[in-house]
């Protein structure tokens, strides 16, 4: 029941929101709906253990052999929780921003949430594809309507990029569908397939390219910095906090178990690509002059590590990836909130035009520093646990690759501290001379995130426990 509610709540409230006229009404409605979803998610994660509570199954398209099967396993719970947390956080932190056509804006946001939930919960190939697109299309409209000045070109690129990926995946799904004995889309039938040789390799790539674009990993990443930069920041938060997790999630759920041999066969290539991407993106991040682009490249570097750790193919790395999916979502949303707060107040995101903000907004400075430290995986912040486990997994796979990937730890410190220094330290400049502390809602949201960051950094075990069932299913090691 819970998974159905998680999808229906944002879907219905999103559809209703299209008819909302006033700005405040739409905001309040969206916030209320997302908080309700959060409550349902928390209940589902904490107190639901029965099969009936965690799963839902009904006929959907019987003529095609597709059923509406959704369910929450460990990884699903974690990502559903992340999705559920991030939307109220996003709505809360941007509560004072005004968008034209607020009804449609929040409606599309909520539809995205429904799509994301569906992606994380669905256990049926066609359904998965359906939600995958449902998550993508509202974002297209959000970016192209409310984005920055270059939004049309950028969004178009983003859309074409991800859509090509989606179509390749659709072909793959259909192929698998025709391979199953009684023509079904159910994930367990896909798991039961034993594709041989060439077949497996070809379909593996159809799926992998779709996911690689979504994550994104080098060299499929160029849509991302542009899209992050041009989207309205609340959309960017969703994009980088939750949406990129779709790619990683899908690799774990839909790629590795279905194509075990191809996964093993190509793991070396993909890990090397990911590690190149990590170093490459970190180096580029050092040279960025724009807060949003810096965070975007930093995100590419982190995602590269996650992708590499998945393909390292051991339980410890996989657990790290799952834990990190959640943690990275929280951290990166925190960074975006700060970026947004700065942009809203000062009207610029360029480092060259910022400086000395710590004197004017000490609280924001402290909160950003904590978020930045989480971004560089300092121990006792949540990201440390994930990165520690992931590097551990990578190290077990190959010592040298892990050592090279480790360079990104150093580079990460360089660009993150650069950012902190250039925005907050030094003397005030023209743009920051009249700056003030950010508004209360932003502060409180950030404080909440900081609490999560530190709590999960000190006591990460509950999160790690959530991953056990999924890892056992994927790796078969317990």
């Amino acid at each position, binding site marked *: 029941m819970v998974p159905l509610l998680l999808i229906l709540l944002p879907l219905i409230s999103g559809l209703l929101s299209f008819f909302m006229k006033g700005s405040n009404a739409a905001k309040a409605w969206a916030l209320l709906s997302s908080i309700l979803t959060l409550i349902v998610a928390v209940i589902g994660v904490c107190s639901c253990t029965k099969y009936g509570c965690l799963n839902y199954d009904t006929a959907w398209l019987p003529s095609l052999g597709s059923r509406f099967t959704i369910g929450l396993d460990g990884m699903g719970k974690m990502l559903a929780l992340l999705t559920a947390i991030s939307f109220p956080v996003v709505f809360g932190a941007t509560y004072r921003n005004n968008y034209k056509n607020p009804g449609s804006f929040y409606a599309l946001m909520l539809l995205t949430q429904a799509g994301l939930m569906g992606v994380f919960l669905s256990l049926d190939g066609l359904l998965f594809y359906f939600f995958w697109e449902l998550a993508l299309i509202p974002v297209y409209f959000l970016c192209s309507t409310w984005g920055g000045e270059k939004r049309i070109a950028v969004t178009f690129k983003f859309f074409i990029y991800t859509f090509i990926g989606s179509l390749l995946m659709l072909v793959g799904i259909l192929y698998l569908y025709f391979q199953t004995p009684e023509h079904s889309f159910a994930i367990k039938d896909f798991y039961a397939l034993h594709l041989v040789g060439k077949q497996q390799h070809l379909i593996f790539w159809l799926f992998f390219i779709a996911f690689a674009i979504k994550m994104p990993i080098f060299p499929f990443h160029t849509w991302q910095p542009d899209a992050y930069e041009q989207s309205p920041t609340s959309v960017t938060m969703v994009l980088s906090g939750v949406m990129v997790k779709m790619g990683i999630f899908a690799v774990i759920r839909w790629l590795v178990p279905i194509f075990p041999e191809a996964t093993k066969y190509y793991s070396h290539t993909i890990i090397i690509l990911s590690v190149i991407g990590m170093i490459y993106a970190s180096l580029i991040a050092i040279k960025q002059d724009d807060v949003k682009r810096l965070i975007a490249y930093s995100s590419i570097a982190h995602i590269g590590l996650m992708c590499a750790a998945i393909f390292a193919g051991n339980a410890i790395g996989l657990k790290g990836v799952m834990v990190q999916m959640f943690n990275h979502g929280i951290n990166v949303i925190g960074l975006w909130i700060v970026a947004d707060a700065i942009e809203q107040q000062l009207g610029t995101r360029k480092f060259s035009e910022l400086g000395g903000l710590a004197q004017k907004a000490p609280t924001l400075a402290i909160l950003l520093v904590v978020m930045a430290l989480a971004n560089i995986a300092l121990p006792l912040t949540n990201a440390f646990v994930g990165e520690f486990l992931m590097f551990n997994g990578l190290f077990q796979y190959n010592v040298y690759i892990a050592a090279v990937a480790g360079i990104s730890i150093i580079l990460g410190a360089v660009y993150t501290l650069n950012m902190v*220094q250039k925005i907050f330290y030094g003397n005030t400049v023209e743009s920051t001379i009249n700056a003030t502390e950010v508004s209360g809602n932003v502060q409180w949201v950030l404080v909440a995130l900081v609490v999560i960051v530190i709590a999960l950094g000190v006591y990460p075990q509950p999160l790690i426990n959530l991953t056990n069932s999924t890892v056992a299913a994927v790796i078969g090691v317990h």
Partner: protein
Amino acid sequence: MSKLVYLVPLFPLIGFLINGLGRKSLSKSAIGVIGSGAILASFVTSLVLFFEVKNHGAIPVQQLFTFIDVQTLKIAFAFQVDQLSSLFLLIITGIGFLIHLYSTAYMNNEEPQHYGRYFAYLNLFVFSMLLLVLGANYVIMFIGWEGVGLCSYLLIGYWFKNDSYNYAAKKAFVMNRIGDLGFLLAIFWIIVRLGTVEYGGVDGVFANAAAKLSSFDVTLITILLFVGAMGKSAQIPLYTWLPDAMAGPTPVSALIHAATMVTAGIYMIARSNVLYSMSHIAMNLVAIIGLVTALFAATIAIKQNDIKKVLAYSTVSQLGYMFLGLGVGAYTGSVFHVMTHAFFKALLFLGAGSVIHAMHHEQDIRNMGGLKKKLPITHITFLLGCLAIAGIPPFSGFFSKDEILAAAYAHSPIYWGVGVATAGLTAFYMFRLYATTFLGTFRGTHDQEHHLHESPAAMTVPLIILAALSVLGGFIGVPEILGGHHELHHFLAPVLTTEKHHEIEHGTEFMLMGVSVALAAIAIAVAILKYSKKPELQDATGFGKLLANKWYIDELYDMVVVKPLNAIAVFFKNIIEKSGIDGLVNGVGKFVNYSSRQLRLLQSGQVNAYVLMMVLSIVVMLLIWLQEGVIFRVFAKLFY
């Protein structure tokens, strides 16, 4: 009794939280009392624990909770108090308290809000440092390790309005991170081979080391650990951050960059002595790096004119000594030197702070001179510190340095020779500093002279206590040939592997001591004679200029590492990313666009043209149909 272990780091944590959250509402005196009180409470607890350990042996490992448990690997958040860590606890909390006390006066000019921030950072530092030494496994040590790095970063950049300070802070953090990567890789290596990171116990790292690790593993693990130590303890090639770290407030330099944090590397290697004793290569590497650093930094210190820079290079050099001791197997000697160094170097830094305070933030010794009369307490304590570091008996530095040198001689006379030469240089530059600062005549501005004053009691009392410790601290490690029992050695014996017994004849050992003391005495005499009347006021020339510019190592790093890295980053950003990958992606888009524009020309709008095309197509289709067999075969050849 064992529950007390939790309290040690808890007090500073509470202090951090109160000062950090209440920095806007608390008064300055409240902040000072909370900040110092937390450390004092921690010190008292540490004392209790120390005597517990001394009388009853190590306290069993105390587990707080499971930090990470992934079935194949369990990491507990656990504390361990044994002989080694209890000694470090005393150093950290004891000296930490004195420096907190000193800071209440030194930082008194700051606004309350920043004053609170300062004490919050300082408490957080002590908390992290305590985690580092209390941790019962490498991961907890790593947590503390990164934590102290963070606090060091925050405190170096404490005056954040100054951009060069911020660069120094960032440099410190990044260089430490390079070392941290080595440490982290070592931890992974241990996990892969042993599946645990606990030090002790039946399935701990050390218990399993000999049985399960090949010599290759041990060598790599120890070298990687040492890379971590290089970063934190400022050894070649990762030492350049420490002199720059002097940007922070002076008490911070005393606490973090002299007495405690920078000795974390020594603690780590002493803690891992079981592993190190299994690898000769790593031991020799540690010894050589330590020795080279000691000599190299000492040469630079000779020509520095910033009072804190001299002390900073001196710290680098003394840390090199400690690594030399570790490398030749004199673990006790190194830990002993950590302790005595903490006393006298903290004293020297605080003394320098007192001078800087009196001189209104003037740090150049060329503008000082003759401060002896104006700052009597500072002068006496500083002199005692200089004597201690120069290794004059019976001051504390003599005993610890001598123990390391004796062990170095047993290992190789060359090591000893370089070590003694460094000791001579140390005595020389310290007394150059002393003579230039305190002797001769005052060379500052009239205004400065007018305001010269001895520091308040909150600053002088720590100086006096530290001076007493610097003088007397050596007596816990008096070697047997001088009629002592070396209590420290017996105390630490349970946690350190039996050192190779350096059977040097008593005659030789006396001779070695004699040589080093005589050399130090000569160096002191030369320095005082040379600099008390005519200090060096001009910029150095020739070889001196090379030293004054620190052998141009910073410039070298800039040229070899920073600039190329920046160039690569720019190349990636502008060429590969923009023109390469994005160019390719956009190229596909452009190609589609271009070809559709070409195809569009067919759509001319001329009805006749359309019809013509239609007719031609029909004709072609008919032809194909007629020649079906032929065409099919051509296609078949193409595609199959």
